[in-house]
């Protein structure tokens, strides 16, 4: 699906992996449904209860800093999040998003324009974030990794590559 539509959940700078998916759950919460239930637990207790499919998480700079914990990307995907838009991403979080098949969009101008709770549309093919009457373009993924994302994540990509699909 190249068009994502939903409400924005807007947060600040340096949102870290621990507040997205607490460390204490790293070895105890592994089921996708359970992971979705604890998403953002230490940042915003409303999030997991109220998030709707297609909703967009919006962060400031250095989104996802901290741990290599990829559950911090997967829990948002399992919670139905359509995309994460940020001013910048930590490198590990950005990789984990690609590997989870969750669009991680770096677009500082869109972040500035988006208000919490506002409707946002992301057009992945066109490389545009639409907010109200405005639209903001974002750079495409590097060609070397676009295949991973398009396959739905690193695991399906690898299965395809190894001829196991």
């Amino acid at each position, binding site marked *: 699906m190249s068009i994502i539509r939903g409400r924005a959940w807007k947060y600040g700078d340096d949102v870290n992996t621990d507040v997205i998916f607490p460390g204490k759950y790293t070895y105890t919460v592994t089921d996708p449904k359970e992971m979705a239930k604890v998403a953002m637990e230490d940042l915003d207790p409303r999030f997991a209860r109220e998030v709707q499919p297609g909703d967009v998480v919006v962060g400031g700079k*250095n989104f996802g800093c901290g741990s*290599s914990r990829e559950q911090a990307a997967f829990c948002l995907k399992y919670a139905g999040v359509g995309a994460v838009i940020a001013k910048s991403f930590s490198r590990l979080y950005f990789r984990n998003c690609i590997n989870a098949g969750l669009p991680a969009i770096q677009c500082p101008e869109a972040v500035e324009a988006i208000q919490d709770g506002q409707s946002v549309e992301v057009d992945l093919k066109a490389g545009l974030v639409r907010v109200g009457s405005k639209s903001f373009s974002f750079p495409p993924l590097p060609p070397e990794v676009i295949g991973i994302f398009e396959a739905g994540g690193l695991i399906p990509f690898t299965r395809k590559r190894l001829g196991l699909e």
Partner: protein
Amino acid sequence: MGKTFAEKVLGRKAGKEVVAGEIVEVTPDVAMSHDNTAAIAKTFYSIGVEKVYNPDMHVVILDHCVPAANEKFALNHKEVREFVARQGITHFYDIHRGICHQVLPEEGFALPGELIVGSDSHSTTYGAFGAFATGIGRSEMAVIFATGKIWLRVPETMRIVVTGDLPEGISAKDVMLHIIGKLTADGALYKAVEFTGPTIRQMSIASRMVLTNMAVEMGAKIGYVEPDDKTLAWLEGRARRPFEVVTSDPDALIEEEHVFDVSNLEPMVACPHTVDNVKPVREVKGVKVHQVFFGSCTNGRLEDFAEVVKVLRGRRIHPSTRMIVIPASQQVLKEALAAGYIAALVEAGAVIVNPGCGPCMGNHEGILAPGEVTLSTSNRNFKGRFGCKEAEIYLASPRTAAATALTGTITDFREVV
């Protein structure tokens, strides 16, 4: 134009000349995973591959919740043991050995010029030995188990030059907190950070590990210290195989350079809830602390024990403060026992815990209660890090931790010696 360390190592692995910004597919020399190996194994099998690509490439070290805190953790460990046995992974260290970032170098796997990936963000630590070492996610590690390969972007290089003689008792941790405070939590985003300068050359290997360990806290992809005689002496008798020292050419492109003169540096502390919220200890002194945690992959080594014992030997920690001590490895524990450090800390009223990550990830061995404050020698003070989001975490050096345990409040160690 010459090549940077990062360009050389990734170029050699990719089998071609590369420049910063390129994406390459490479096979690491070493791939480390820890308690998360059970989850990685499940993902690995979900790919549809039965046998690991190269069992010899992998090092598996149990450390994140050792011994197991409950049945779930025990089952996790059991699955790791079954996986390594089934796959013939011989470089396996069970719950007795210590924290991965300490054990992997101790066992001679952290070698100059090699490419090391670990499914843990603090894998940057191995750059203290001149390795290109970075953290990766679980799925990526599962794919390395299956295919031996990973994609990596060749990072741009930032140089951090540290000059000046450190004042008495001021440590690598104070230096690193100072640098992160100045450059901020995304100041080195995606960068290969090379630590250099006379102060770094004077530092011990253990101190250099503090810098590369925390490089990721300012967003770096790798931290690196150019190997010197100290590095080679440390590796003597430890290195698993011959290695080649790789360094940046003098005319390589260094994108940014920052110079820090530390000759007047004071004890520093990172305040809740971000690592870059750094202040001199004097600005927060007097804050009541319920628990001091001395340990972790940042500061749980023998030289850290020496610092702590300098303050606490023959004294008692404050009755309203508890102190948790976790050596970084069994090797460190043995040396600390031989040096009399453990006895001194027990006499002082500290609680000694099995080598491992302890409370740092919020699993066990020193979880905080709501409203409690801890001062820790670890590397992260994120909300919830010690298992409770209504607790506060300060980060500081071992000597500051010892002084704080002594008085029960955040203390400048120079006031208690």
